[in-house]
């Protein structure tokens, strides 16, 4: 490979990573500021949102055969956002203070899919409670006419259990 080609490849992959990072940081920002409708707009219409439990291999497990914490299809993702907008979603009324830290972003192309793997810490604070969720995100991203959209988001908790936590009432 010539130096010029290598530089071209490096440029491409850096550019792709920057585009994906921009998407992930935008996502984090929207979740932190409770702009959930806009968050939903980052996803494709057939998107899924998963949070596997701690005692399965979260990188490979499927919610069709293992009990997950969250296995949202597009209908349920929308309903999750609708529910969280109501005062009857008691767990998030008043709303928690939320902060998503996203780092160590790795990106690779897999045919038409862009796969991203990143690390997260999500902080949720509300009255007596301050919990940290630690883990890694697996994002499946597609390029829709120059715009990156998330087709699948899996939040793998690198935790032994959801303790002392009691709930994932926010969006991770």
């Amino acid at each position, binding site marked *: 490979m010539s130096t010029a080609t290598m530089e071209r490849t490096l440029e491409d992959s850096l550019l792709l990573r920057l585009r994906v990072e921009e998407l992930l940081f935008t996502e984090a920002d929207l979740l932190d500021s409770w702009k959930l409708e806009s968050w939903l707009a980052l996803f494709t219409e057939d998107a899924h949102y998963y*949070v*596997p*439990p*701690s*005692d*399965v291999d979260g990188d490979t*497990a499927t*919610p*069709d*055969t*293992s*009990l*997950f*914490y*969250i*296995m949202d*299809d597009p*209908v*349920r993702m929308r*309903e*999750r956002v*609708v*529910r969280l907008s*109501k005062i*009857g*979603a*008691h*767990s*998030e009324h008043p709303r928690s203070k939320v902060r998503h830290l996203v780092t160590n972003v790795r990106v690779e192309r897999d045919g038409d899919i862009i796969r991203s793997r990143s690390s997260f810490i999500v902080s949720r604070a509300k*009255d*007596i*409670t301050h919990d940290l969720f630690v883990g890694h995100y697996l994002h499946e991203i597609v390029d829709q006419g120059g715009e990156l959209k998330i087709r699948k988001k899996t939040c793998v908790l690198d935790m032994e*259990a*959801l*303790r*002392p*936590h*009691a*709930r*994932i*009432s926010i969006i991770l």
Partner: protein
Amino acid sequence: MALTTGIINDKERAQFLVPRRAFTDRSIFEKEYEAIFNKCWLYLGHASELAEPGTFLTRTVARRPILFTRDKEGEYHALLNACPHRGALVCRERHGKGRAFMCMYHGWTFGSDGHLMTLPGSSGYPKGFKTDPQKQMVHVPRMERFGDFFFINFSKDGEDLATYLADAGDTLKLLGEHSPGGMQIVGGTQEYSIRGNWKLLAENSFDGYHAACNHSTYLEYLGNTKGALGVDPLKGEAVDLKNGHAMVEYTAPWGRPIANWVPIWGEEGKKEIDAVYAELQSRVGPERAERIAKKSRNMVIFPNLVINDIMAITVRTFFPTAPDYMEINAWALAPKEETEWRRKFRLYNFTEFLGPGGFATPDDVEAIEKCQQGYAVGGDAQYNDISKGMARDGAPSFDDEAQMRAYWVEWDRRLSEYEA
């Protein structure tokens, strides 16, 4: 009349009051371990979790680390997971396959039945040391199974499991009848905690009264989701199952993979659900089949086993580590032979309502934690009211509180006996 624990059970005035210190008092919490967790039958696990000989799992039950094994002959053992030498945890894995368990400290190695197989440096010990009963892993004093449900008891004496379960046994049998080929725990455990007293979760797990307010957003979600609602109204009764166990049994509008079809499952789904129902009818008879398929049940087996057979089946156990903190483990139970389609919908149903990421449990948690916080007011506000339905003629409704009163009466009896 006032009971020893301070519970007021006044039938004439239709009043049942529970003192709030039952949820906050450190000395009551300690007594609960002596009088309840060290005396009652406690859920350990399900046979399907050790499907093959030579498998094991570790689990904490009422603060004690337990090693649950199946030896090569297929026998089940419940061992206190501590080395007889210096007390270190012997098995440090959550689950796996293996017939020998080596303590990582000095290498003492035990079989699936807890016997000492290998003693490194045995020349330093007298003859007969290795077979000394004191040098083997200790079995939990009692372990019994009811169907595929394994329970343990930390007390050597007391009633057998079937006697203890009383009428709750029939509901456990009913669960077994969901399938011609047996039930299994689906892989994946929901492990979480709540910053509230453990008895608040027992109450909440079969509280039919709180749904309309606490879970309004869940009910609205069912309404929003086209075809998620069936025709059956929320209606039913509370049943005292004796010995502190109780349940509410009722019809509900949600779909049940065994076997209550809702429009969202489509015509193909209807064929499958109809076939499941037909098989059920031919196997257990029309009356029992209707009960299994059409009725939901929330059951609490005293003190800390919840089996809710609702839009899916959850097996849930919990124990306190402090008056205001509990740890919870929850599993999904399902027919072994279930098709991929039905299993998927079962888990989809489960996560819709149940667990830390569901559309209902987070609000239960909020209610429990806010109760615990509210108890700090002290002063004259000393009692919780559990009277609903006491003045009613006839069977208590599913949204009354008779099931909780049955639980509290047993709680009081156990603590009072311990104090006597």
